């Protein structure tokens, strides 16, 4: 197949790439861009997502082994695009409310999604790096897009500095890997993984590479940026960073370690991942108890969730890959939903983020309270919500890999985390309102929450809709 036809295989990427350029044109050419761009963005994203998931069984390697489409990549693309579409839907009224209604917002979202898609599809270390930088730089800007607010700027700066640090690790890791493996092609590295891994320099390089991505998934002890950035950034942006950003980083970890997952090779990183998973879960769950700010609480909960997914990396078998992917999907929609509710309740100047603002929410807005409760129960991992199945699959993988103790730690941590998730429900349902907050009506915002809620329920009650796709593409 020639390069000319190969390029059309990348239709979702092309559509978004062209969309970015068109969005820039729309932004400078018309005054009404704020009312066109969100819908244009959603259209692009939904198209790309639908195209990916329809062609999920069409697995191909393109451009001489540089890039893959279909299979796991397609599932990740689905998470990125649909997650971002939900976030944009939620953000339409939010960015008007908080007076940062710039067209750049949508362009940056599109670019970051393109970066994520490149990461998930890349089969070459440099492609990964390009995708990572595209995503990260967009995120740095998005985190600080509301430049008049101090918290926003602080978040952007912290994110940028620590993110750049992580990038340094990754680049150094790539250099060492290239130096020993004489190639940046992931397929070659995976093919001869067993041979390379005995080389100390290769192992060092791979470790540095992995650590760089552990920064991105917000695992302990590389989590320092998470609470401040999640709290400081605009709420929908936090939703995007915490879900799709995490998924993109996991997609790279899964690809680079795919030799371990599929070929029964000893997992050199088992202990590293097991320790990191344990610390992330316990640290995230315990510190979240003390948080009164809901965004900060969800930031620590996000560290804990990174820990649950890292259990899958430690387990290192084929079940763990499907478990992680399912978990990421479930987490994406429940977290986007939770941040969506927070964005709706938040005032125009970052107020009403405190848990006290949620007191008696049930009597003010039963729909929002109901959905928030749904997301909290889902995050806590209570069946029949999607979050439960994510944990279940990951625990199955751990026990199959004889890591029963890790599953038990996960269970302990889940039991702890129930406390702070329930606390939100306690405030919404069991306490009477103390403040007189006014919730601005936002149809699109509510729609985003409802879509996330329905997805959380569908993946919870009928997990096989997604899980059968994951397992069948993994059997390639």
């Amino acid at each position, binding site marked *: 197949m020639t390069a000319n036809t190969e390029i059309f295989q990348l239709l979702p990427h092309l559509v978004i790439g062209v969309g970015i350029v068109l969005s820039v044109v729309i932004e400078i050419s018309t005054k009404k861009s704020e009312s066109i761009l969100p819908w244009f963005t959603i259209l692009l994203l939904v198209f790309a997502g639908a195209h990916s998931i329809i062609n999920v069984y069409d697995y191909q390697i393109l451009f001489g082994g540089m890039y893959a489409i279909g299979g796991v990549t397609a599932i990740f693309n689905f998470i990125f695009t649909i997650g971002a579409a939900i976030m944009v839907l939620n953000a339409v009224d939010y960015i008007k409310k908080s007076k940062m209604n710039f067209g750049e917002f949508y362009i940056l979202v599109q670019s970051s999604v393109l970066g994520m898609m490149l990461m998930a599809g890349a089969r070459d270390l440099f492609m990964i790096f390009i995708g990572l930088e595209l995503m990260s730089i967009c995120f740095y800007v998005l985190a600080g897009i509301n430049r008049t607010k101090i918290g926003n700027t602080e978040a952007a700066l912290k994110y940028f500095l620590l993110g750049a640090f992580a990038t340094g690790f990754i680049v150094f890791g790539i250099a060492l890997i290239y130096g020993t493996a004489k190639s940046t092609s992931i397929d070659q590295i995976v093919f001869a993984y067993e041979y390379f891994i005995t080389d100390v320099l290769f192992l060092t390089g791979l470790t540095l590479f992995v650590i760089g991505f552990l920064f991105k998934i917000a695992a302990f002890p590389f989590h320092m940026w998470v609470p401040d950035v999640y709290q400081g950034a605009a709420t929908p942006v936090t939703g995007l960073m915490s879900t799709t950003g995490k998924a993109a980083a996991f997609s790279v970890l899964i690809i680079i370690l795919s030799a371990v997952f599929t070929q029964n090779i000893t997992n050199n990183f088992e202990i590293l991942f097991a320790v990191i998973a344990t610390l992330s879960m316990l640290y995230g769950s315990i510190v979240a108890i003390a948080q009164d700010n809901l965004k900060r609480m969800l930031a620590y909960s996000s560290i804990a969730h990174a820990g649950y997914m890292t259990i899958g990396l430690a387990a290192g078998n084929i079940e763990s890959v*499907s478990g992680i992917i399912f978990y990421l999907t479930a987490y994406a929609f429940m977290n986007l939903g939770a941040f969506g509710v927070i964005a709706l309740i938040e005032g125009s100047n970052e107020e009403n983020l405190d848990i006290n603002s949620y007191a008696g929410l049930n009597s003010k807005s039963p729909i929002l309270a109901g959905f928030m409760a749904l997301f909290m129960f889902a995050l806590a991992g209570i069946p029949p919500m999607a979050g439960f199945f994510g944990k279940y699959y990951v625990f199955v993988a751990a*026990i199959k890999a004889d890591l029963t103790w890790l*599953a038990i730690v996960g*269970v302990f941590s*889940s039991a702890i985390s129930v406390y702070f998730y329930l606390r939100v429900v306690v405030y919404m*349902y*069991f*306490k009477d309102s103390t403040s007189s907050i006014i919730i601005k009506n936002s149809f699109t915002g509510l729609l985003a929450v409802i879509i996330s809620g329905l997805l959380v329920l569908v993946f919870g009650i009928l997990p096989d809709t997604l899980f059968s796709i994951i397992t069948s593409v993994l059997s390639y």
Partner: protein
Amino acid sequence: MENSQILTYLLFTPIIGAVIILFMKESQAVLIRIFGLLISLFAFAVSLYPYFNFDYTNPDFQFIHKVLWVESLDISYHVGADGISVLLILLTTFITPITLLSSWKAIDKKIKLFTMMMLLLEAGMIGVFMALDVFLFYIFWEAMLIPMYFIIGIWGGEQRIYASVKFFIYTMFGSLLMLVAIIWLTVAASKNIGLYTTNLILLYQQAPNIMLDIQKWLFLAFFFSFAVKVPLFPLHTWLPDAHVQAPTAGSVILAGVLLKMGTYGLIRFNLPLFPQSTVEFAPFISILAIIGIIYGALVAMVQTDMKKLVAYSSVSHLGFVVLGIFALTFESVQGAVIQMVNHGLSTGALFLLVGIIYERTHKREIAYYGGIAKLVPLFAIALMFASLSSIGLPGLNGFIGEFLILLGAFQSQVLDSWWYVVFAATGVIFAAVYLLWMYQRVVFGTVTNEKLNTELTDLNAREIIVLVPIFIFIVWIGIYPTTFLDLSEAPVSAILEHVKNYTFNFLYW
């Protein structure tokens, strides 16, 4: 009777009812109440079908309905019922309309949410009693926590938030351990059968072949989870808080049905899945049960709060059930099964009566009352009746269960000592002490508190309708228990036979 869908209809009746109520208006409170009551009565009617079509001679599961659910992990929606299940499902569908009717006045806010939660709770409990897939069982077991949590948290007493969170975290902790055990069990069994399955009936064959070292841990994890729910001493501390803070309807469901899920789980999972460990641990667990019997009774004796007294009496009564199960004789397990129903009826009635009087005075302290026999004669009679049933007066239901359990435990080869029975029997005496003493202080004597004259009114028609069905069954079981014992006869002897087969050359028998 393969592939009957009656149990599925039964399960979805309350769920569909709850969904319909979701779309009704909060202002139509009376309509919602009547609709909820009708749905729960309809569910009761549906649950009579399996009872009347039950094949008494068949020890296996009947009315099985199986649909593949999660193909990749071979998880099925797989329900069915044996005699024990049918009995407990009947108890559930019988208690739910009673609690809905009893809360007609007591619940006066958010009636829509309340009715929905009660119906969802009913569905969850029915699901637990009919699930034949360990995974499905876990889903119902967990999902049922959410409505109960809301019922305690929204409509409970002053300390409701503390009680509801404690209830949730306590039980969640236990059940998460069970989750690990379920996964471990299915993974370990899959090495024997070669495929990963959560089908309980297949696991019955395979689980006993798991290495004893692993089996022991699995047994303990399941046991711990069920023991929290029972609750067995020393894991009982959530119970008094939850009971006292819950609204009457919540307490009745909690005592009547929810606690039975723990003991049901012991019979359904621990005994047949891990027979060797069961026999090994039986003496220790029986000792815990007896400590629970005596401790619960002694603590109940010194309570000043009526509801707390009844709550601690539950700890004591459930100790009998656990003793019966782990004595592992036919009589004792049969006694345990019937005692689950008995406790549901008599403690349910006691909670209803305490709730009825609380509605009028908003006081639960025993000291507040005195000499109310003259003011509310019908109430006094009803309370006497319920207390005697709980004490185990011959001719009423409690006697049958306790007698069978003690008889069975006395003959038990696994326990092999009559000291167990001696200590357990003191519980019966203590029960008479704390209940009759409470009765004496509340009902007899002269009216000590002037306010009672104006506050108290006797049972009204609705309350009589609520109580009479319970009393009918209390007498029925007391006089002719065969109706109910026959149901569980075949499955109980099959389970014991199964346990015996695996431990025959192994230990005491």
